[in-house]
């Protein structure tokens, strides 16, 4: 570019202003996205959606009901895999919604994350047992295999064993009505 010395100098002097303006505009967009919920710097993404269920095992939480990745293939209906723990407060908040889903014949398989048998049994006895199958993940290996960063988290697995949906937090009535129910119908 054959720019004169003077023009080049003028460009260099305007450059900081240009950079600042771009940065400021970017910040504005980010703030806007934060307010609408499209941007959360602390969110941990999960990349298993669209992929088959990862290889994992769980120990039977209560006699005869444990499961592993082999069981999540060729299912008669889509399964909601729910990671929870008795010591986790949002899990207790989500529990009534799981009971509701169970009454609507949704198959829920639970994985108790780093929990003790006694505490789990107590929770299910007190508040009801929505789980068709129940596994215990004492070491956290299954949780990491699924890319979990906390509890509760839930995954929707279709009949072929492919993960179709993930939520990194407790279920809510809105999420169930707006997202989960349509997906259950799609993959029924």
């Amino acid at each position: 570019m054959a720019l004169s010395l003077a023009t080049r100098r003028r460009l260099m002097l305007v450059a900081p202003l240009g950079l600042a303006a771009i940065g400021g505009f970017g910040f504005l967009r980010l703030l806007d996205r934060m307010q609408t919920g499209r941007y959360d710097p602390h969110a941990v993404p999960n990349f298993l959606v669209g992929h088959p269920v990862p290889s994992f095992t769980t120990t039977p939480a209560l006699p005869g009901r444990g499961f592993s990745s082999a069981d999540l293939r060729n299912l008669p209906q889509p399964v909601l895999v729910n990671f929870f723990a008795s010591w986790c407060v949002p899990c207790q908040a989500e529990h009534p919604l799981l009971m509701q889903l169970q009454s609507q014949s949704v198959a829920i398989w639970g994985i108790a994350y780093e929990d003790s048998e006694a505490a789990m049994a107590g929770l299910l006895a007190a508040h009801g047992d929505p789980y068709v199958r129940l596994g215990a993940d004492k070491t956290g290996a299954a949780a990491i295999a699924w890319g979990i960063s906390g509890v509760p988290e839930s995954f929707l697995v279709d009949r072929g064993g492919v993960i179709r949906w993930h939520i990194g937090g407790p279920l809510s009535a809105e999420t169930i009505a707006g997202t989960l129910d349509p997906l259950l119908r799609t993959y029924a």
Partner: protein
Amino acid sequence: MVPELGNFALALACCLALTQAVLSLLGAEGRDARLMSASPGLAFGQLIAVGTAFLALVWSNVVSDFSVRNVAENSQSQAPLFYRITGTWGNHDGSILLWCLVLALCGAAIAAFGGNLPSALRARVIGVLGAVAAGFLLFALTASNAFTRIWPPPMQGQGMNALLQDPALAIHPPILYLGYVGFAVPFAFAVAALIEGRVDAAWGRWVRPWALASWCFLTCGIALGSWWAYYDLGWGGFWFWDPVENSSLLPWLTGTALLHSAIVVEKREALKTWTILLAIATFALSLCGTFLTRSGILNSVHAFANDPTRGLFILALLGLVVVPSLLLFALRAPVLSPSGIFAILSREGGLVLNNILLCSIAAVVLTGTLYPPFANLIGGVQLSVGAPFFDSTVLPLAAPLILAMPLGPMLSWKRATLGPALLRLWWAALAACVVGVIAALGWHGLAALGFAGSAWLILGAAADLGGRIRLFRVPLAESLSRLAGLPTAALGAAIAHAGLGVTIAGIAGMTLASQSVTFLRPGQGLDFAGDHWTLQSLTNKSGPDYVARTATLVVSRDGRTIAVLHPSERAFPVQQTDVTDTAIRTDFLVDLYTALGSVHDGGAEVRLRYDPLAPWIWLGALVMAAGGGLSLADRRLRVGAPWRRESKRGSRAAQVSA
């Protein structure tokens, strides 16, 4: 009653700041002596008003007035008095008020000590400071009012963040803010100079003390934060390249460049554009840091509670400060008179290299910090840019800087040859190589480089001083009298450069640290780092608002006890958090560091660390700040405060009429 007084004082301060801005700038434009002479008075008035508001908030905290929402949310009556006072600035609203207080202090300081500045320049500087202050006071009044009341008041506050109940963290914000906000003064000088269209040697001399003072405080503030992280977080880390830490480092980097650039403006009337841009950039980065920390855009452990509306207001402030000043820069920089000529190899050239390297490091840190949110905005992906990235990119840029640092002061102005400079430093270079080789034989290569670099800096600074007092070339008595008569700025610069060397030695030492995490029962012990560490006992104790579990660890060597340490874990029932208190024994060469982990099964998990040279990291920062402080004491930089010697004559001559 008192909170209402505080709120009123805040509103008054806002009006005064606005008036200060308008009248001063108009007065300077129209050369109206009456308006210009009003500006110092307005600045003092603003300080009194903001001071009153601040004291009102402190008072509300001290008496635990829970009808004030800010106090109810962030304090509790059982907290010790010291922490009730310092907790005033431990939350968003209080810290914004602290920010306003420091801004007002800056304006008043110019009013008090700017006696030898030409009246137009002084008026413009006070005016710009008033404008910035008005923006922040408006923010403090509207979006972040610390004096909002709640009724009925709760019986007890929600409690102070347990982490804040720590002496270092309690005084960390004021010192940090004196640094951050202090850079508003060079910013105001830069904007004033652009409006006037003149940057000359006198301007350089007037700006430097303000930049230096702010730099000293910022250095201390960052070092304090790093030291706190080391002794409080419990695993021995002192710098994590966390986004909030980075936003405090950025103004420090450009501020250091500004300091050095201003020297060239003063001595040679060169690098004017650079210096003006650096002055604007440093304050802009301070504001940017405030924005990033308080808006929640960044993923950080430090961030205050997220509030996008607050973020919008601060972004607006940031925009209103940065855009007009950069626009002014783009339009008016060509008006500044052409700079002095110098060869590429000269002290000016060396300082240009210094500027380039420091600003490059700042650019890398800025890009790395902002990349995750912008990558998310543009590409929709969630990235992280963490410590490994910064370590691998900043080091290659810092290395040439360290190499050039001792050489710079030895080069002559305008045109220099490398020969004489290298001749004066050959022994320092040799010693550094020897240190490096010895270190490489015993330890990891990176540590060896660090030790060599540190030796180079410290000995280089010594060589600089030695050359100035003609050590070994004239009788010792004459050398000593030369030392006494040396301008304190030269002494300060050498000490500050040596201080950086001390810090680098500390960081290099820390790369050689070792640690062990084990589970011990009372009576059990283990051998670690050449000593025997025994867990003697575990006890419980109660404090004013916490319950503590304390371990007693005895460190012995060859049967002789060298240290008894008491790491503990404090549980705060009101806030439902636990705070680890490490116990460190230091002899200023090695830190023996212990932290208590989970207690169960009749024993405890303990973390033991052997940290060689760790204290030097923060001692080095203290030395740097001391060097800076010493430079401030230089009689040539006195800006109006009385001094016993002859400077008054000199400063009067420099007063150019408006």
